């Protein structure tokens, strides 16, 4: 384990020492000094560089590759094609669990989407491999293709993303509609989007005999080790997967893809380590994206402005060979009090790579459309958007009838509205100005579920009073290295500077997936429990030892803090190291797990309220988000600094989704026309002049023992709709499509 990062404090600025404190990142110095090792930084001896050749057509088959030209290029060692590529142990379409997409490993010459890998070139240098891939100059037999929402007939489906039911119905929507006072129909489209993590997908693979070492950024280390093993036909114990740092994941590094398998297979075949790093343009195809959606919402109101019925239908795209349907309609399940509720999803198949989970999958586009529809309904009811949402506040989950485990949304509305100054809003569109600019104020409600996965952890107290905590968490930049260590320190009752954290390595206990905004809750619970288990063992030693001042206090009679156990009945205490020394032990090791027991009987969500101010040039249509304020109720906030960063990041993501992010296809070729960061715009600093995220206090005794919800994705929800509604308020133009283009506003 010597190669593990020792995350004991190395010169970082320490502002706090346990959960609730705004500790700065424990890995911050490593990252800003370049000492943090990312997957592509590994350069084992004898390394070969791999470069994928990718398809330039959207559908058909490869009829010729000039392998001879590529292999003749100086430095090129090997070219793998469907004729020569080493094979997986099982079918590339094997579904060993629900989070497996087809492993594109050059098994045949068919092309199913533009950008699909069609060959792999290995060379002594990256430059030689790159040129070798270019020299392959593929020729194709093409077939007619389609890449947009209009290119195929919808198919009915039972499930959407993650196996969720594709539809829901409660109450009687049709009966309610027949007697409703007003009916409001809204359609909203969202674009195809790409994760665009700054760190490209990368893998360095090395075999030592039958033992496989992999360095690759990964959001689900334990699951991925199992997946690699299954496809390679080896035992998981033969694999070491290291992923100490990720330069962003956003969902795209939770799903393994064929390129990783090809790097591993070719390393075994050639007997040399292999590194494969995707070019930016190659990240637009084989490693997932958010599919476009076309959403139709119907809201029926009674005479008082109560929602009588809510219906939300989504049409979205998946690939021709796998199914991941953006579950956008689910955003309407649990947010507003709709006594009659119906949601549905339909899929279409297109010649694109398989979509996948991307930050707030389903919720992001679903919330965007729902919040526009809510403002349309508020207008129909003649009510202020906030007043309308409060009138339709869900006191229990409308889709299940369950009570909420906690719901601080009213406080979020109140806090954010006050800070924003919402009461000063003038109702009519185009009624607010700043100089010649139109000014608009809009809002949206944020909501995101609080899932928990399965995690395990160890916490070892050592004779010197320090501790090692172990769980294979994934830090995508969100701050797991820091927040999880804070929880573990609390579980152990010691100062965080005495905690060495080992993480990001598959030999460690499985921390579960860093996704679904559930990583801190899940892995944190496991770490806390492991610490408590270690403390329990210490307490047993001490309270049963006549030489200890704690003798006879009983387990319930001592409290752990600051590296000592204190009697609850008097002032006496003893240091951990003294207890261990007297017992002649080098260490005690605690074990813990994190998971939710059984089916929850409460609805568990984080909530928030986002208020946006936009300025719009009335002549040119350019939009600027001049203020963006969110307040969030997300249970216990483990680290306010990191949580705020996550919430702000989500809200900025929302700016991009509302105004910029959009993959543009040439429908004739099926290729993207903007597959790089120059053409695919995400927000820059200058797009974010004023932004704030507050958290409101929320105790949740049901969500988990620690009361932790999640903050990774909720910031995207609410924000897109808030910006869209602000643009609507500014211009009088109701958004029907995101991103909103300037020319649609003039």
């Amino acid at each position: 384990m010597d190669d593990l990062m020792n995350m004991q404090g190395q010169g970082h600025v320490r502002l706090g020492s346990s959960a609730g404190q705004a500790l700065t990142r424990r890995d911050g110095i490593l990252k800003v000094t370049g000492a943090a090792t990312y997957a592509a930084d590994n350069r084992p001896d004898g390394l070969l560089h791999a470069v994928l050749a990718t398809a330039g057509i959207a559908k058909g088959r490869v009829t010729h590759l000039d392998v001879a030209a590529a292999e003749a290029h100086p430095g090129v060692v090997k070219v793998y094609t469907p004729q020569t590529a080493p094979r997986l142990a099982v079918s590339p379409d094997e579904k060993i669990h629900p989070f497996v997409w087809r492993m594109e490993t050059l098994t045949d010459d068919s092309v199913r989407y533009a950008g699909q890998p069609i060959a792999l070139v290995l060379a002594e240098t990256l430059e030689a491999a790159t040129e070798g891939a270019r020299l392959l100059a593929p020729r194709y037999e093409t077939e007619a293709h389609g890449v947009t929402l209009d290119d195929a007939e919808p198919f009915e489906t039972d499930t959407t993303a993650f196996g969720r039911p594709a539809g829901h119905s409660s109450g009687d929507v049709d009966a309610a509609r027949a007697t409703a006072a007003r009916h409001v129909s809204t359609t909203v489209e969202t674009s195809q989007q790409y994760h665009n993590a700054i760190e490209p997908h990368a893998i360095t693979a090395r075999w030592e005999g039958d033992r496989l070492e992999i360095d690759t950024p990964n959001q689900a280390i334990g699951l991925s080790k199992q997946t690699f093993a299954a496809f390679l036909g080896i035992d998981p114990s033969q694999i070491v997967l290291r992923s100490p740092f990720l330069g962003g994941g956003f969902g795209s590094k939770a799903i393994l893809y064929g390129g990783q398998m090809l790097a591993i297979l070719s390393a075994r075949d050639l007997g040399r380590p292999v590194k494969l790093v995707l070019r930016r343009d190659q990240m637009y195809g084989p490693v997932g994206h958010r599919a476009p959606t076309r959403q139709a919402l119907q809201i029926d109101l009674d005479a008082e402005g109560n929602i009588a019925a809510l219906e939300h239908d989504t049409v979205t795209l998946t690939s021709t060979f796998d199914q991941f349907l953006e579950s956008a309609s689910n955003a309407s399940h649990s947010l507003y009090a709709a006594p009659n509720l119906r949601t549905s999803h339909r899929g279409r198949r297109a010649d694109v790579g398989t979509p996948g989970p991307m930050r707030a999958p389903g919720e992001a586009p679903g919330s965007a459309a729902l919040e526009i529809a809510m403002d349309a309904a508020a207008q129909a009811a003649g009510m202020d958007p906030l007043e309308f949402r409060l009138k339709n506040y869900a006191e229990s989950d409308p889709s299940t009838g369950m009570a909420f485990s906690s719901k601080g949304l009213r406080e979020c509305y109140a806090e954010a509205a006050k800070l924003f100054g919402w009461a000063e809003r003038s109702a009519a569109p185009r009624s607010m100005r700043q100089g010649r600019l139109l000014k608009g104020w809009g809002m949206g409600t944020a909501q995101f579920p609080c899932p928990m996965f399965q995690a395990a952890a160890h916490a070892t107290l050592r004779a010197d009073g320090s501790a090692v905590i172990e769980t294979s968490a994934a830090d995508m930049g969100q701050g797991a290295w820091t927040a999880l260590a804070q929880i573990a320190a609390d579980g152990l009752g010691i100062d965080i500077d005495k905690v060495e954290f080992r993480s990001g390595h598959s030999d460690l206990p499985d921390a579960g997936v860093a996704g679904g905004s559930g990583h801190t809750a899940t892995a944190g619970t496991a770490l806390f429990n492991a610490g408590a288990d270690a403390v329990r063992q210490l307490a047993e030693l001490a309270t049963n030892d006549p030489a200890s001042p704690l003798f006879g206090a009983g387990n319930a009679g001592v409290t752990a803090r600051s590296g000592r156990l204190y009697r609850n009945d008097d002032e006496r205490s003893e240091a951990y190291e003294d207890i261990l020394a007297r017992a002649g032990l080098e260490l005690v090791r605690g074990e813990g797990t994190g998971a939710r027991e059984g089916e929850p009987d409460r609805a568990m969500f984080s909530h928030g309220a986002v208020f946006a101010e936009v300025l719009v040039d009335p002549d040119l249509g350019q939009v600027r988000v001049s203020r963006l304020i969110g307040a969030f109720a997300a249970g216990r906030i483990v680290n306010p600094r990191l949580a705020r960063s996550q919430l702000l990041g989500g809200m900025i993501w929302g700016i991009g989704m509302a105004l910029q992010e959009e993959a543009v296809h040439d429908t004739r070729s099926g290729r993207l026309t903007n597959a790089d960061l120059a053409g695919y715009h995400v927000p820059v600093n200058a797009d974010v002049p004023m932004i704030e995220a507050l958290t409101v206090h929320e105790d949740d005794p049901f969500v988990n023992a620690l009361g932790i919800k999640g903050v990774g994705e909720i910031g995207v929800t609410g924000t897109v709709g808030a910006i869209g509604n602000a643009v609507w308020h500014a211009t009088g133009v109701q958004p029907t499509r995101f991103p909103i283009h300037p020319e649609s506003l003039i």
Partner: protein
Amino acid sequence: MNRFEYSRAETLGAAVGAEGALLAGGTNLLDLMKIGVATPERLVDISRLSLDRIEESAGGLRIGAMVRNADIARDPQVLARYPALAEALLSGASAQLRNAATTGGNVMQATRCSYFQDPLSPCNRRAPGSGCGALGGATRNHAVLGWTEGCIAVHPSDMCVALAAYDAVVEITGPEGLREVPMEEFHPLPDAEGSGAAPLAPGEIITHIRLPDPRALARNARYVKLRERTSFAFAIVSAAAALAIEDGVITEARLALGGVAARPWRCRAAEAALKGQPATAASFARAAELATEGARPSGDNAAKIPLAQRIALRALERAAAGTPERLPALPASVFAGDDNG
């Protein structure tokens, strides 16, 4: 990337007539090489040529081809006399790129037409005779002026738009000696077959950009750029305007559009219509309409024509209001004006 030879020219004499692609800041050429659009067999590095000064020249300035974009934008003489040039430069790319990119390189940068950048697409500009891949494709960003069926790409530079408005002259040295071309005409317009003749003959090199004395234009000049994000984005449309105003009457007007054609588009008719007119909203509105004379959509981009008129109007209005003491924090932004309260 293909294998290539690299050599460095230490003197202008060594650079002139050299065979191969000229490498200066490398911010565009190296990208094009990486994506297989440019495949030079030889690179001649001219980045260390002593063309790195801004000099006084007959009441104007003479900017060496190797002066970095950032250094032009921060030059006190440029800021005082050609503020629209500084504003245009600061509205382009990012700070890092402006630190690396050179004057000559900015002029010579390639279109960002996605079909030009995609070696799998036909493109008369990249592969003469192969056709225009953009026609009929995703053309929201393409030309509305001066285009042909041979090519509908736009030139991406902000700097060149301001230079064209200022009557800048491109100084070129070649094996045959010196020649000069107005910035306005330097970039060829496409012909029926393709993107037109190359602006430089083999062996030629841009040595300087010469700016004539701005005279009264110095006080009333602005650049405005429409884009979907506030920084690090090419223009949807942009405009440079410079006015000489005496006693409320326009004695001279300059107007050039960016993002609309294969070259910075000088709006001569609009300029003529302004001369002798009062510096009023009505005069500017008439001129803005004339700015896009002859424009027509090349595809999915009809909205660019009114947008170009409106950005021209905005630039004229801002120029008339007077060049600010300091450039705004968001240079050229629609939201950067004193006109926005």
